[in-house]
């Protein structure tokens, strides 16, 4: 062991963006090493789709109308798995305290966690969607509009989900509580996403699905703003 000499660290408060990026990068490099969260989400997604296959008899006629619903249900369930895990990692070893001790704005922590969670969700979607297309010969999901809706829906779902997971992880019933808190509040996002992406699959003109898309945008903005404002109250003591 050597003694601390005198390379005095030059410290200045990191900018908001730098703190956010530090958290995102930390989460991504930890996850790409362990792959715990992504593999759990992926395997779970495939299992859900498999179960839907039996439960709904996904033949051609049924598929046309339920593809959007099946996919969104799958992503919603897999999403809670990821959200739970991502926040539990911070909580279990006291790392949340480590983040809170840094001289950064609390909302930087929220955005950092939300962006990593969104990245995990999008990675899962990027793998599950081609697989679904392959398994069910459903190529209509490869449309730019469909992917746009996927992104908008995921943003809304993850922003409320990140806030609620920061709450549920601090309760006694943490593992079961997140979906119970999240699903009823996230209904508008799921509903609008299913309607919009279902419309795209059925080949409706963009005008007809504008309403759910607008709703998604409104939901995203409102809930990002709210989460940003109340995150302080969820992590402080």
């Amino acid at each position, binding site marked *: 062991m050597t003694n601390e000499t005198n390379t005095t660290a030059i410290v200045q408060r990191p900018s908001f963006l730098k703190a956010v990026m530090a958290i995102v990068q930390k989460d991504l490099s930890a996850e790409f090493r362990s792959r715990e969260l992504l593999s759990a989400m992926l395997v779970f997604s495939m299992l859900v789709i498999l179960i839907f296959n039996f439960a709904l008899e996904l033949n051609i006629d049924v598929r046309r109308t339920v593809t959007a619903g099946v996919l969104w249900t799958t992503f919603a369930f897999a999403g809670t798995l990821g959200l739970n895990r991502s926040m539990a990692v911070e909580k279990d070893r006291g790392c949340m305290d480590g983040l809170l001790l840094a001289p950064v704005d609390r909302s930087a922590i929220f955005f950092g966690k939300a962006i990593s969670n969104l990245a995990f969700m999008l990675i899962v979607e990027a793998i599950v969607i081609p697989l679904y297309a392959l398994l069910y010969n459903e190529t209509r999901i490869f449309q730019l509009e469909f992917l746009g809706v996927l992104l908008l829906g995921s943003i809304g779902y993850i922003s409320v989900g990140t806030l609620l997971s920061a709450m549920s992880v601090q309760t006694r019933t943490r593992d079961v509580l997140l979906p119970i808190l999240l699903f009823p*509040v996230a209904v508008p996002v799921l509903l*609008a996403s299913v309607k919009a992406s279902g419309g795209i699959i059925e080949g409706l003109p963009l005008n007809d699905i504008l309403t*759910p898309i607008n709703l998604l945008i409104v939901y995203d903005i409102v809930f990002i703003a709210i989460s940003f404002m109340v995150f302080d109250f969820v992590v402080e003591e």
Partner: protein
Amino acid sequence: MQTKPIALTILDVLSVISIGVATYFALVFAPTEQIMGQVQRVFYFHVGTAWVGMLGFIMAAVVGVIYLIKKDLKWDRIGVAAVEVSTMFFFITIALGSIWARPAWNTWWTWDPRLTTAAITELIYIAYFMLRAGIEDPEKRARFGAVYTLLGGISVPITFMAIRLFRTIHPVVVGNESAAAQGGFSMSGDMVTAMLVSFAAFTIIFIDLMWNRIRMGSLEEKVEQLKLKVSM
């Protein structure tokens, strides 16, 4: 031990009378609706309870915000009281709606926007109680509860709008798009009177229950305080 305020006792009595009056107006005073007949009378209590249910949920979101700013547990007690009372009233609304829907729509339940939104709203506030049950520290419980009622308060109208974008069969009673929906009816003057009486009655009952519940909350806290004192 503080005694019960006289005003509250008077309000208790007034509430009981209100139930009687509202019942009279709904069952006797209001004319029988021509197409649906007697079952339509359920409607007066249905809208009355729905009104106070919504009132309480909005109130909970508002006092939630006040709590987050003021950090005074008094506001949390009001919030819990509002959610508890409203969850009960909202359940009654749904049950009465079902009774009406059976003859009107020929089913107990349909996935119409209002019904669906009502069900989701109930679930949000049940989740609220589960969230609170998982937290020991009263301040954290109050904070999380406030945040969640706020999220719920914003999400419910968006949910309603979202579902409303697709077609509805629920009659629009207040507003003017009325008769188009299946089972819609136009109200005569006496019907409007009965409805207003029901609104007033349930508002009184709501205030009474809220007051009692808030009082119970502060008594509970006193008991805890005394217990703590004894154990020291």
